[in-house]
């Protein structure tokens, strides 16, 4: 029992890490579900890396990294819609183009200043064990915004997953709600970089929601499963990181990915197609 609880009971930094991690997991469960269902994984990936130059510039000039991340995300989304609307290139191409460009720009900026390499690791992989109380509060506000917005927009978001055209004809502007969905992805990525890092936040968006997709038959249940499994991964990851002295953020994302593969393997070993199919009673 000690092994499971003491690290959290006797260390304030572990408590803050657990709280911040669970908040990331909740936010990622909501946003990640829509990322998985709408096939927005690539744009989520691009956002999580595209914020890097923004953070790097912010650290260089001495403003909060979160402000730089927000500017980076805005440039990313703006650039993608510009290329998609003004050229014949697909959005995949536009996303990929901006993704590598922004990532390279970030590394170029960071490599220019020699005192910066430690910061780069921190930005990429987060500093969940050293998170400040102020950052936990920022995370709390952000998670609240994500959950409340998604609750308000539950119907249009559901329709978007079903068919953007149907959403439009039913009176819910598919462009407006699509942009709102992108904004929630961006918010989650921007705020979460302090905890799990820009490289790993994408794992938190994808892995728990994918596990949820394997288990759930309704979107609400999928979000609930993702939140539960994401929180479990945070707890497990922190525990392993504490006892075995591994990088906390990476261990959390690894746990989350492993949980997916365990569920996937169990479902396949039972030789039942995922998820459970129940023959309807006529």
């Amino acid at each position: 029992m000690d092994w499971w609880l003491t690290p959290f009971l006797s260390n304030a930094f572990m408590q803050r890490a657990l709280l911040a991690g669970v908040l990331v997991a909740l936010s990622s469960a909501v946003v990640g579900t829509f990322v998985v269902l709408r096939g927005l994984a690539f744009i989520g990936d691009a956002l999580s890396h595209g914020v890097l130059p923004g953070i790097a510039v912010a650290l260089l000039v001495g403003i909060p990294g979160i402000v730089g991340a927000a500017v980076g995300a805005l440039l990313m989304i703006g650039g993608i819609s510009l290329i998609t609307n003004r050229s014949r290139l697909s959005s995949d191409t536009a996303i990929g183009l901006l993704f590598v460009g922004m990532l390279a720009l970030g590394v170029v900026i960071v490599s220019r200043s020699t005192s910066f390499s430690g910061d780069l690791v921190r930005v990429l992989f987060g500093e969940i064990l050293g998170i400040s109380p102020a950052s936990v509060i920022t995370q709390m506000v952000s998670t609240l915004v994500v959950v409340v917005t998604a609750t308000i927009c539950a119907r249009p978001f559901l329709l978007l997953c079903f068919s953007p055209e149907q959403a439009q004809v039913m009176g819910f502007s598919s462009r407006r709600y699509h942009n709102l969905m992108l904004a929630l992805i961006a918010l989650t990525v921007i705020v979460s970089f302090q905890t799990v890092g820009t490289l790993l936040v994408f794992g938190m968006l994808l892995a728990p929601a994918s596990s949820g997709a394997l288990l759930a038959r309704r979107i609400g249940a999928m979000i609930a499963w993702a939140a539960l499994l994401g929180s479990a991964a945070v707890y497990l990851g922190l525990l392993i990181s504490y006892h075995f002295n591994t990088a906390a953020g990476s261990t959390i994302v690894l746990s989350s990915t492993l949980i997916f593969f365990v569920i996937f393997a169990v479902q396949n070993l039972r030789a039942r197609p995922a998820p459970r199919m129940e023959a309807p009673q006529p």
Partner: protein
Amino acid sequence: MTHATLAHPPQAASSAPRGAPCLIARQLTVGYSGEPIVADVSVDLCAGESLALVGINGSGKSTLLRTIVGLLPALSGSLTIFGQIPGATPRRIAYLGQARAASFILPLRAIDVVGMGCFPRRGLFGRITLEDRAQVRAAMATMGVAHLADAPLRTLSGGQQQRVYLAQVLVQQADLLVLDEPTAGLDAGGRVVYLDAMQAELARGAALITATHDIQEAAACTQAMLLSRRVVAQGPGHAVLTPEALLETFGVVITMTDRQLGVAVVEREHGHSHKA
């Protein structure tokens, strides 16, 4: 080009006045990003009337339907739906498009899909009432899918999914139904159920526009429009669907067994280039 007048068809009650106008199009041109697909469409549709669009793939049926529901801007001409621009009256229009949900990943039950039909009238915050739920059950029963209510959408066959989507249309209690190939994938039983449901919708005063390959269904409509990247013929359903017009539209010879038009259309991709 036979532009038959839009006079009331003989099979409808001859003395009854036409209902309130649902759709008025004048010299309407539809198409994608400046490229016209069908030009010079003029049509009136009133409450309780039905309009069938008949033509091969690529003839402009779906383009016209998508323009009517406001998904595509009209290229020129005028189009008003309930006196307003397309897309301005979402609560009065039910649309069934050809694009299908990626249902193999989407965790939705059949009843959830039908329940979406309540969203237009309830908006973002309106409560889904007991009456709404009863309507959802009733629509599923009408389409013969009540027993599939709790089944995940992805486990249903194509025809069963089509019935579920049609139930979603019925739940909306719309004044104008815009259906793109509603009988695609339906078995014989499904087709009968669909035709009965549409009769009931028309009887309660709804108007219906349907793109169809079913000549028999089209012939029973108040109006029919034969499309082949232009309006080949237009008028009362039974009068328009002549062998000559069908030949020009489809580019294939269609054998007519009798005046019942009991024919199935063999479709050919390049039929529209045929100069009859």
